[in-house]
């Protein structure tokens, strides 16, 4: 799960990730996926290490990170709220869920609250269309959601550590 680390200095974990992969350029996306999963974003320090390890230019790594929506350059919040905007959810009114979350958190999609507690994103289909509309908080899925449920869930997490 996301280990919030603002410095990216914990290189021992990074070494652990890198050592699982051969020094083959085609492993770049696999490594970035693990780094993103571990830190909650791709720290600059990690990019430098990957660049040395795979012998790929920093610019190219930056190009790859910014191309794929799963990778981010800024840390996500402790609780990342993702509202599914896949078609099945859209048809069932997921835009209203997103609006409600924006209103409640006072941030836009792609942003993190100043205290680092919440981030909000609009995501593409997570494949739980039978439960549409859905949103997730970290890995917890909330199905058949309503704006009221969104408000309630955000309140619950606000009161959590």
């Amino acid at each position: 799960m996301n280990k919030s680390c603002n410095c990216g200095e914990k290189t021992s974990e990074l070494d652990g990730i890198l050592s699982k992969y051969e020094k083959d350029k085609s492993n770049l996306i696999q490594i970035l996926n693990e780094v993103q999963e571990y830190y909650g974003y791709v720290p600059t320090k990690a990019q430098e290490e990957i660049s040395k390890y795979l012998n790929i230019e920093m610019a190219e790594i930056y190009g790859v990170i910014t191309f794929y929506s799963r990778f981010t350059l800024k840390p996500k919040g402790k609780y990342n709220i993702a509202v599914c905007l896949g078609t099945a959810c859209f048809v069932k009114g997921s835009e209203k869920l997103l609006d409600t979350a924006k209103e409640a958190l006072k941030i836009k999609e792609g942003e993190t609250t100043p205290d680092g507690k919440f981030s909000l994103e609009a995501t593409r289909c997570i494949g739980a269309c039978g439960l549409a509309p859905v949103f997730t908080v970290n890995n917890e899925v909330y199905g058949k959601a309503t704006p009221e449920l969104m408000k309630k869930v955000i309140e619950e997490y606000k009161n959590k550590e």
Partner: protein
Amino acid sequence: MTLEKIKEIRKEKRKELDLRINLNADTKEKHILVCRGTGCTSSKSPKIIENFRKILKEKKIDNVRVIQTGCFGLCAKGPIVIIRPEDTFYAMVTPEDCEEIINTHIIEGKKVERLLCKDVDDKLVERLDELNFYKKQKRIALKNCGIIDPENIEEYIAFDGYKALEKVLTSMSQDDVIKEVTDSGLRGRGGAGFPTGKKWMFTKMAEGDQKYVVCNADEGDPGAFMDRSILEGDPHCVIEAMMIAGYAIGANKGYIYVRAEYPIAVQRFQKAIDQAREYEILGNNIWGTDFSFDLEIRLGAGAFVCGEETALLESIEGRRGQPRLKPPFPANAGLWQKPTLINNVETYANITKIILNGAEWYSSIGTETSKGTKVFALGGNVVNIGLVEVPMGTTLREIVFDIGGGIPNGHNFKVAQTGGPSGGCIPAEHLDTPIDYESLSAIGSMMGSGGLIVMDDTKCMVNLAKFYLGFTVDESCGKCTPCRIGTKRMLEIIEKITRGAGTEEDLENLEKLAINVKNASVCGLGQTAPNPVLSTLKYFRDEYEAHIKDKRCPAGECKALTKITIDPEKCKGCGLCKKQCPVNAIVGEPRKAHKINSAICIKCRACVNNCPFKAIS
């Protein structure tokens, strides 16, 4: 492990698992099957499994086993529990219901009536096969989903698993395999419908010291989840088919490119690979033959364009997923410029059945040009949301109404959308079109990967086109100008129309631009991106015109064009709307007609949806 040993496992296991498919099995054993697909897992099915096992242990019941399976298909009724051999179907089960199911069903031998499923005609259904949802379906690609434990290779082997590979390796030449696939008439299930056998032949004929087999599991069409369900419910059938493909074209290495957003599928597929290696099904000189094969997972990272085959190859190689110019096609210059065969998950899922049952059997199903079955992810405004597999040639009406149970909440059918952001909308007048590749493109849509979203009469078609264009603008890779800039300009025009600022000239420009983007883009993404606009313009031009000429959104979805008012005749002054309003825009004394202050109203329609007297519109 030798082939003999595998055959032995098949024989033994098949006996043990007979009650899974033989509903008249004479046995004291029972299997409780619990869906562990993504949908049911999200609604706590792991906890249900845990509870069942705990209770069985406490009560010392040892003739009942609890099995996790893949998706049963009827996701709307999840979490689903099925008890075999009697085939009792329990819907929307919660972890708290486990005790009652064990006490009533297992111990007392009675049904738990309150958990039985109600069909659309309100009839209480006891058995799975009695549900209307399943009556018109034919499961080929999904054959094992919901029957076997996907994390147990021996269960796969029991139901003819790796038997097609055995047949291929022991009695068929490369050309025999390709001929069988060609004769079956199977076409690519990823969207474009290219004949699979031809692709295999091209890749076999291509010269190269190293060839690759790739499985495209980058299921990006929002609302489609059939590939995910196959990987989650029956991962070995994809491995087996990729091996057969490897044998046919002369490749010893395969890659499967899966969305990282599908964690359960990724984890199960990895487990399946590990087990196949452990049983020496994947590896060198398989079963003493000259054939060697191994397989690796590559994760995607959230880019829709990577579903395009050459972009996918770029991504496997570790770069930005931007499509390559074709030709050369991947069959000649694919992964690391080597001959590469790329097929979609569902395409592979048909292969083992074609090899075992023969091309003639497969081609007897379907229409003249489209053979076999197609899996659709049925979603949106339809009662039975879920996964359905039907023979090609089934009509849309049968899928939406007979299988899907029609439109809920008393609304009417407006359109069915197939093909996702690359497809189009099919209006009611075409409901009786038999579905196949040709008929769908003839009416301005496409098969696509199989997302089928039903929409009722409350949906605005201009807003829908805006939604899809927003998607393609986000997902355009930026390589070619028509797609990168063209789709953006189209979106701007549509936004202008939904704001009520559109002109008739805008509509003309939109249409012209759409055709240009379609004709001039490099890859499938750009070439099909205008489809949602073109098809809604074709069938619902009047809605666009209403937005432009009358500054009105007929469906009431485009917020800038709607004004919500309370009918003073119908309003009883109950105050419910006032309580619902999130911005306090409603004023009024109790038991007197209320009013909405349009300056404050954000048109969220909470009041409209909650008024007991239908006084607000």
